[in-house]
C-alpha cells in the first residue's frame, strides 16, 4: 500500500507550495495583478472580433505620442469631474452595427466547392435628446441581406454572368434587396472565415453609409461609433469618435522617443478618470491603411477602476478621433479633454452585467439591442434553402 500511494494521486498541497514559490519569485521582479474572477479556460472563451480586428491594425506595433506630457514617467492626464449633458451636451448620436452570418450549406462547382453563406447586416444610430432619452432619428436604421461568395475569379463565367443579371433584376424591387458580395482574396485556407470577414467588412461599410446619412440630416453634437474607426470615409465626417471597448495588446508606445511601454504597462497605472497621452500609430511602408492611420489619433481612457476588475485593461476604452496635425495643439487637447470628460459621464447608467460592461456605454448598448430586436429570425434564414 505504501509503495502505491503516489500512483495516479495528486498531492495538491505540494503543488500549491511549488506554485507559491514561483509566484513569490515572479513578484520580486514585477507587479502581478490577480484576476479575482474565475474565467473559463482560454479555449472556452468567445472570440473577441473587435480585438482581432485591432490586432490586424497593429501589425506595426510602434505608436508615438503627439501630445507632450508634463511628466514622461506618468504620461496621463487627470480629467477632473465628468461633463454631464446638463452642462454641455456633447454626444448626440450613437452608432452601432451588427452582423449575423448563416452557414446554409456547401456549394460545389466542377473545380471548386465553398460554404454557401448568407448574412444579415444591420446598423442603427440613436439620437439622444436634451432630457437624455434615446430615439431613432429619421434614416437611423439600415439593414442589408447579402449572399457571400468567394472572389468572382473562382466562379464559372456562366455563373458570374447569371448572378450579375439576377442582381440587376432584383434592383427593381422597391424594398430590401438581396445583394451578392464577393471576397477580395482569391485564396483562402478557410473559406467560411473568409466569407464571414467579408460580411464584417460590409457591416463597417453599412455603418459608414448610415453615419453619413444621419449626419446629412443633422450635424448637431458629436457622433459616437461603437468600435474602432476602420474606414477612411468616417474621417470625412466632422465630430466623430470611435469608441472601442476591446483592443489589441500589440501596440508599443514610445513616449518622447525615450520611454517604451507596452499596453499593459501603460494602462496598469492609468487611474479612474484619467486618460493617456494622444498617440498615433507608426506607418509601415506600403500599408494600405496609411491614409487612415496618418490622420487618426487615439488615446485610452479609464472609465472604471477597482479591485473587481479582471485585468488592467478592463474598464478602459480606446477613443479614436481625426487629428490631422502631427503634434496636437492646445485646441485639439481641449477638445480631447472635453470629449473624454463627456465619456466619463456616460458611466451612468451602466449596462452591467453584460460582457465587457466596465467599458461599455449605455446608449451604444441600447443601439445594439435595437439592432438585435430587429434581426430576422435564424429560423427564417435556415428555411431559405428549404
Amino acid at each position, binding site marked *: 500500500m505504501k509503495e502505491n500511494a503516489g500512483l495516479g494521486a495528486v498531492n495538491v498541497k505540494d503543488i500549491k507550495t511549488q506554485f507559491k514559490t514561483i509566484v513569490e519569485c515572479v513578484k520580486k521582479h514585477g507587479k502581478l495583478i490577480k484576476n479575482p474572477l474565475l474565467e473559463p479556460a482560454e479555449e472556452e472563451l468567445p472570440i473577441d472580433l473587435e480585438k482581432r480586428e485591432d490586432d490586424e491594425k497593429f501589425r506595426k506595433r510602434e505608436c508615438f505620442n503627439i501630445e507632450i506630457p508634463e511628466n514622461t514617467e506618468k504620461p496621463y492626464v487627470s480629467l477632473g469631474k465628468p461633463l454631464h449633458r446638463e452642462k454641455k451636451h456633447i454626444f448626440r448620436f450613437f452608432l452601432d452595427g451588427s452582423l449575423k452570418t448563416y452557414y446554409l450549406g456547401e456549394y460545389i462547382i466542377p473545380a471548386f466547392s465553398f460554404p454557401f453563406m448568407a448574412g444579415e447586416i444591420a446598423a442603427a444610430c440613436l439620437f439622444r435628446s436634451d432630457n*437624455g*432619452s434615446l430615439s431613432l432619428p429619421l434614416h437611423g436604421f439600415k439593414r442589408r441581406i447579402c449572399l457571400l461568395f468567394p472572389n468572382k475569379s473562382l466562379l464559372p463565367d456562366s455563373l458570374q454572368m447569371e448572378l450579375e443579371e439576377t442582381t440587376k433584376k432584383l434592383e427593381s424591387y422597391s424594398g430590401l434587396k438581396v445583394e451578392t458580395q464577393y471576397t477580395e482574396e482569391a485564396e483562402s485556407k478557410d473559406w467560411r472565415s473568409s466569407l464571414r470577414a467579408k460580411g464584417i467588412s460590409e457591416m463597417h461599410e453599412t455603418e459608414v453609409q448610415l453615419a453619413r446619412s444621419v449626419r446629412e440630416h443633422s450635424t448637431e453634437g458629436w457622433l459616437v461609433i461603437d468600435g474602432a474607426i476602420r474606414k477612411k470615409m468616417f474621417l470625412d465626417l466632422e465630430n466623430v469618435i470611435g469608441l472601442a471597448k476591446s483592443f489589441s495588446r500589440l501596440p508599443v508606445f514610445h513616449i518622447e522617443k525615450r520611454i517604451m511601454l507596452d499596453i499593459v504597462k501603460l494602462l496598469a497605472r492609468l487611474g479612474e478618470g484619467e486618460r493617456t497621452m494622444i498617440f498615433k500609430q507608426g506607418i509601415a511602408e506600403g500599408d494600405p491603411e496609411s491614409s487612415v492611420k496618418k490622420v487618426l489619433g487615439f488615446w485610452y481612457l479609464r472609465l472604471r477602476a477597482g479591485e473587481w476588475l479582471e485585468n488592467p485593461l478592463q474598464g478602459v476604452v480606446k477613443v479614436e478621433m481625426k487629428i490631422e496635425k502631427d503634434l496636437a495643439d492646445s485646441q485639439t487637447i481641449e477638445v480631447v479633454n472635453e470629449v473624454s470628460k463627456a465619456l466619463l459621464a*456616460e458611466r451612468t*447608467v451602466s449596462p*452591467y452585467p453584460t460582457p465587457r460592461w466596465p467599458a461599455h456605454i449605455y446608449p451604444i448598448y*441600447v443601439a445594439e439591442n435595437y439592432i438585435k430586436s430587429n434581426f430576422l429570425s435564424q429560423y427564417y434564414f435556415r428555411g431559405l434553402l428549404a
Partner: protein
Amino acid sequence: MKNKPQEKGEIIGKTTATEKFPNTVEEFYFWVEPGKIINPFDFVSVEHIRDTTTIGLVSSMKLITDAKSQLADYVSSEFGKVESVPQTPRIETTVAKAKVMSNISEELPIEVLMPVSANKIVRFARADDVRAGLGLLAVEEEKRIPIGVIEMSNGTQVLVFVDSEYLVGPQGAHLNISGITGLATKTSYLMFLIQTIYQRMKDHVAMIIFNVKQDDLLHLDEEPTDITADDEEMYKIVGIDKEVFPVNDPQKGAKGLKYFLPRGFRGQPNSAYISPSGHYVYAYALSDVHNRLDLLFHGVPDPYLTMRGIIDFIMERYGQLRFRNDVTDPLTGQVIRRKGSQVITWEDLRLFGDYPSEVVRYLRTAWRFRGLLRQFTTSDLFVNQRSQTEAYLGEEIKKIKAGEIYVIDIAKITDEREQAFIIGDVMRSLDEMYGERESTEIPSKVIILIDELNRYAPRAGRFEEISPVTEQIREIARTGRSRGTILFTAEQFKSSVDRQIIENSAMQVVGRTGSSELTSDVYRFLDPEIRDIATRLERGEQIISHPTFRKAIKIRFPKPYYKRIG
C-alpha cells in the same frame, strides 16, 4: 355591433408577446405609449383577425427597464452614489396585462378564440365596445337591469346592466356582497339595486328588507339630503327616477312600503325610529310559531338529540297537549294550571313537563328544555296572546303582493338568537306561501335583503351542526331561483358565511376588503391582481363578478334615493 361607428378609440399602446409572456386566449400584454394614463379595469380594444375586435380588461401593470438586476441600478449610480444623475436614463416602459373579455365581430357567426397577435395597436375601448365586450348588446331592452357605471381613465362612462333573468331568475339568481364596514357601500349598493329593480319591475316584484342597523332602512319614504351632483349625473346615466319608495296605502290603492317594527315594552315598538307614514308592530304567540320552535333553539348543544325530541313532540302535538296534573306555584302553593287544561301559550309551555317517557327519559332533560325556553322567550317580542294591533309576520309574509316592500326592523333586538328566529320564520313562511296560495296571486319575484348574513348563516366548522336558520336560508339559495325567491345578502367577510349560500349566488360583489380575508378560497373567482385592487377600492366602488361577464369588472354607483341618517 350593426351600427358600428367609424370613430375609433384613443391609441394607448401596442400588443407584445414574448417567449416568457405569450398572449393567450385568456389574456394579452401591451406596452403603454409614454404619457398615456391607464388604470386597472379600463377596457381596451385590439384589432384581431378577420376584422374582429378583441376587448380586454386591464388587470395589472408593471414598469420594466432593461436592468438585469437591482445590482445593475446600484452599479449605474456610480456604485451607490445616491446623488448621481444618469447621463442617459434607462429605457423603461409600462406593460399592461389585459384579460380577454370577448372577441366581437360584425360578420363572423362564431366567437374567435385565438390569441391576439403581437405588435397590434391598442386603443381605449369605446362605450359600445365595452358593452359588446360584456355581451350586453344582446340583452333585450325590457330585461336590462342597471348595476352601475364603468368609469375609464379617459373619462368614458359606460352604463352596465345585466339580464334580469341572470339576477332574479330563472337563469341565475341571488346576489352576495361583502366588504369592510365603515364605507357604507354594501347596504347602499343593495338598496341601489333594489330601487332600480323596483322602479323597473314594480308590478312583478315584492321586497322583504331586514333592517339590522339602527334606523338605516326606516326612512325609505323620506327625501334624501345628501345627493351630490355626481349622483345626479349618474341617475341620468343609470336611468333611475329621483323618487323615494312609495308608502303602502290600501285606501288609495297604492302599494309600497310597510314598516314592521318589533314589539317592545308594553306593546310599544322597539325601534330606533317610528316612521310617520305608519307602521305595524309584530310579535310572536306560541300559537303562531309552535311549528318553528326548532328555529328558536338553533345552536343549542344537543349531542344526543334529546332536545330535538321534545321540540319535535311539541311541533307535532301542539293543540293536543294537556296537563296531566295540577301545577302549583312553588312560592305560594297556589294552583296555576289545572289538570286537563290545554297548553296554548308560552307560559303554559314553560310550565309543562308531562312528556311521555319515550320522548323524555330523564326529568332533567325536560327541566333543561323549560329553562332554555324561559331564557329564549323572556323578551317583549314573545307574548302569550297577541293584541289586535299586533301582527304575526309569518301571516303577513304569506299575504305579500307585487309592489309591496316589507321593511322588517330587527335592529334593536339585542339577542342574535331572536333576530335569527325572525329571519328563519320569514323564510319558512315564504316557503309555505308557495304551497298555500294560488300561484297567480304570488308575486313572480320576491327579493329578500339580509344584511350581516354572517350572524344568521355563519360558516359551520367541519363537525358543527348546521342551524335550522342557516338551513332555511340555504334552502332558498338552492331552490329560490326557479320559483322567484331571490336573496340579496351582505356581510363583511364571505369566508365567515355559509359556503352554499355564497356559491349559489350568481352575482358576487366585493367592496374594499382586507388582504388577509382575500386569501380565503371563497374569493378565488377573482384573479390575484384583482384581489390586490380590492384592498384599495374607494367609497362607491365595487368589483362585480357575474356569470355573463368573462371577468370581474369594477363599477361605481350613485347613492340610492332615500334619506340616510348619520
